[in-house]
């Protein structure tokens, strides 16, 4: 497979569900996971005579996104109707924005794995309503399709990028950056598995060096980075193979099934709907005043880039640690609470990204649902930092906290895990072990200086055993080295 003569052009359309309590045009709840059709009111069901009333919070969230990417804010935006028949679109049209979106051109800077940065231009972002869900293909009774309108009317912003990405990595980094931005400013819960962010990927290829864009396809509704990457890689290969075999790429909408790994066309350009957009006569133009914009700007939560910089400066974190923790809003918030409690930011960062993240991952939990609170983790790190417990003990304490046994101090107390750091007591143990293992000591003395270090482990094991694991290993190390030196 030689694709070296080709380059890829990628643009993204990202649907972000806004974290408002109620829907964009009705007072029905937007919470996820309720029984089908229990969160759809007369407006969401498009009952005759019902009318939409715009949710101001959704407008504010959209403006906040615009401010976060330094975009022009549409001070007067307008809703239009996008007309099409489908059972999960109860009105027979989607209320969306076309000619006058609420967010205009903006920019998102992404940092790539090689350390370089790249600017992805945002064409615009607009407000619209989500559709309901059709339940078929095994999800419902045989021969019958069901419709769940709980999601219908959930507010979305659709973020449309320019085709500024040239491979899957860039697209994923960009997607993650958007996730980081919208969760950091609190306008989206970021729960990808619940569909809170969904990606449409526009892909085209062209001969290297060409400035003309190739014909693009759009793969719709990807809801994980993994699927997105797979879909892009597959689609790029498909297009290149197609062209190299003398074919042409058709402009079409495609679907990628992440479970079966199969991509297939959904509809071609010829079959595309004529959506007959026109201004929605039930809604007035959306006017956002300068005062509102300024107020939202003043109160805009910290953006991920700023937070990462602050973590380096304030906590002395490495670039890498700051990037990992700082880009994840809930993790960053958790870390800050834990770090304050522990007074050791670096160690807190290690535990947050290490033990905690691994355990959360393995149980598919997000940090907001962590059984170990930030205060608890901070308490644990504090005991490691002040040498009360060893790293090994800390893992045992962490298990206890995870199991709900209380704070680190409670568990240390209850399990008698206190580390022995008293120099006198440790010296006594070391001397006892050396005395009891004369053969090992002789062996140590007779070993080449260069290889002696390897022999230390044996003594350490015996000493830790003798102290029932409670000896402070760093101190033991020191004392042991000193005592053996004296024997040389």
């Amino acid at each position: 497979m030689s694709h070296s003569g080709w380059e890829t052009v990628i643009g993204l359309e990202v649907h972000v569900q806004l974290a408002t309590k109620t829907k964009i045009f009705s007072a029905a709840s937007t919470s996820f996971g309720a029984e089908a059709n229990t969160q759809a009111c007369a407006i969401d069901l498009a009952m005759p005579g019902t009318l939409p009333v715009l949710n101001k919070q959704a407008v504010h969230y959209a403006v906040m996104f615009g401010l976060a990417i330094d975009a022009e804010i549409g001070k007067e935006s307008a809703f239009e109707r996008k007309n099409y028949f489908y059972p999960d679109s109860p009105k027979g049209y989607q209320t969306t924005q076309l000619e006058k979106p609420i967010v205009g051109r903006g920019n998102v800077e992404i940092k790539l794995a090689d350390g370089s940065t790249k600017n992805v231009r945002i064409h615009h972002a607009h407000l619209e309503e989500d559709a309901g869900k059709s339940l078929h293909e095994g999800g419902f009774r045989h021969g019958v399709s069901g419709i769940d309108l709980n999601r219908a009317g959930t507010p979305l912003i659709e973020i449309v990028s320019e085709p500024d990405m040239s491979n899957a990595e860039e697209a994923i980094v960009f997607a993650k950056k958007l996730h980081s931005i919208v969760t950091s400013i609190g306008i989206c819960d970021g729960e990808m598995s619940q569909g809170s962010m969904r990606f449409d990927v526009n892909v085209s290829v062209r001969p290297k060096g060409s400035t003309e864009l190739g014909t693009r396809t759009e793969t719709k509704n990807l809801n994980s980075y993994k699927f997105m990457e797979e879909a892009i890689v597959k689609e790029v290969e498909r297009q290149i193979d197609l062209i190299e075999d003398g074919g042409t790429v058709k402009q079409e909408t495609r679907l990628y099934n992440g479970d079966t790994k199969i991509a297939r066309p959904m509809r071609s350009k010829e079959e595309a709907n004529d959506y007959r957009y026109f201004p929605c006569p039930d809604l007035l133009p959306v006017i956002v005043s300068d005062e509102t914009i300024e107020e939202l700007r003043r109160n805009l939560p910290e953006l991920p880039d700023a937070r990462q910089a602050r973590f380096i400066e304030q906590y002395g974190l490495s670039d890498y640690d700051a990037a990992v923790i700082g880009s994840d809003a809930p993790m960053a918030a958790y870390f800050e609470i834990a770090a304050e409690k522990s007074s050791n930011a670096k160690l807190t960062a290690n535990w947050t990204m290490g033990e905690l993240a691994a355990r959360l991952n393995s149980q598919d939990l997000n940090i907001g649902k962590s059984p170990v609170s930030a205060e608890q983790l901070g308490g644990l790190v504090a005991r490691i930092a002040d040498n009360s417990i060893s790293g090994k003990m800390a893992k045992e304490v962490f298990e206890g906290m995870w199991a709900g046994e209380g704070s680190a101090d409670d568990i240390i107390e209850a399990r008698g895990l206190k580390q022995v750091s008293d120099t006198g007591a440790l010296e006594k143990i070391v001397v006892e072990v050396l005395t009891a293992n004369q053969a090992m000591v002789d062996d140590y003395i007779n070993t080449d200086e260069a290889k002696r270090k390897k022999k230390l482990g044996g003594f350490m094991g015996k000493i830790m055993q003798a102290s029932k694991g409670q000896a402070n290993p760093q101190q033991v190390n020191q004392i042991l080295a000193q005592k053996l030196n004296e024997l040389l």
Partner: protein
Amino acid sequence: MHNLTIAELVKGLQGKEFSSVELTQHFLARIAKLDANYNAVITVTADQALKAAAAADKRLAAGNAPALCGVPILHKDIFCTNGVRTSCGSKMLDNFIPPYNATVVENFEQAGAVVMGKTNMDEFAMGSSNETSFYGPVKNPWASDSVPGGSSGGSAAAVAARLAPGATATDTGGSIRQPAALCGITGLKPTYGRVSRWGMIAFASSLDQGGPMARTAEDCAILLNCMASYDDKDSTCIDREVPDYGATLGDSIKGLKIGVPREYFSAGLDPDTEKAVRAALAEYQAQGAELIEISLPNTGLSVPAYYVIAPAEASTNLTRFDGVRYGYRCEDPKDLNDLYTRTRAEGFGDEVKHRILIGTYCLSAGYYDAYYGKAQQVRQLIQQDFEKAFEQVDVIMGPTTPSPAFKFGSKGDDPVAMYLEDIYTVATNLAGLPGMSVPCGLVDNKPVGLQIIGNYFDEARMLNIAHQYQQATQWHSLTPEGVA
């Protein structure tokens, strides 16, 4: 009792001359006995009405009851009524029972008015003759071979035939004023945004406006006091204080400047209708008003613009009637497409399909600019015509319709002839202005109407002007033969 005006009924009820139950029974009996002649009422809610009347009598006995307490009325079947079938004149909604009230319905309920039922109408308010109703045409009480006008023909005929002292109606291009004129009653289409559209089944959202129908301007004022309200459930409703429309009815109209648009008296206007309207203008002159000839140069463009904008909006407003969630559903659909196409083919009547097709066409890619875009520009020009006129005059007057009620079927094959029925009325909807029709004469023993067009939110003045006319003339109190 049925010949009393609402104002007189209010006095009688508050003065305990008769009870609401008696009054309601009387009107219900008339509906039961006479409506077979008119087909004005689709649904009668006798039990609920009598219960409401009994409750109203209690409120009246306790004192301080609102004006409309105990007054029986009818709602056009376009207003959603909680628990009562709301058909919009269509097979599509023949089985539709809304779980909510329109704000207008709610307002009347709060005031203690007694709702006796729902009136017939053109299907989805699309028509000027009431011939498009799924429930059959309404007959004009003045001439059983003639149309009552539309789309609020049921409300107009019911009021004219004394089946109710007043009724609600809606007007998208003349649907209050034209049937009011053809049935010899008084009807008012308020300023767009004055009356909430919540629960009023949409035809063309940017044009639809609810309003009252009654025999007199004074009664319309009483009804409008109740109907008009700010409603945060309708984003296009305007938050503006509702004046007491009855308070200024007696004001003198001396010095009133009446604009008489040249374009409203051109070819196409029946000479006898013109005579009646001119006579009404002369009456105003006699009362001290000044007639000023004005021009609304874009009048001729109003019907074409209207018949692009209204169907365009209707085509998407009616997409929701798909057989999925409520309303008519075709039998045994094979698949989704079959469900859609047969449900809509079987559920909608011809005129509705006609307009959905026109509207869909006008909004289609490649046609939008030439049709919808142009029509919106025309709409602005028409609005500017009125703005200019109102710099010069206080109100504008002319005929409501080109001629009196026409015979059933006489315009059936020619939609354009039917659409020209709206020639004097659609411009006010396009501009969002209030308009009124007041009976001003008989032509071939059929009523004709004087149209009064006011400036934005000038309903109180219009009602005052109409009331002053009705103090001096008797056209509004004529009773159709056989109604008595």
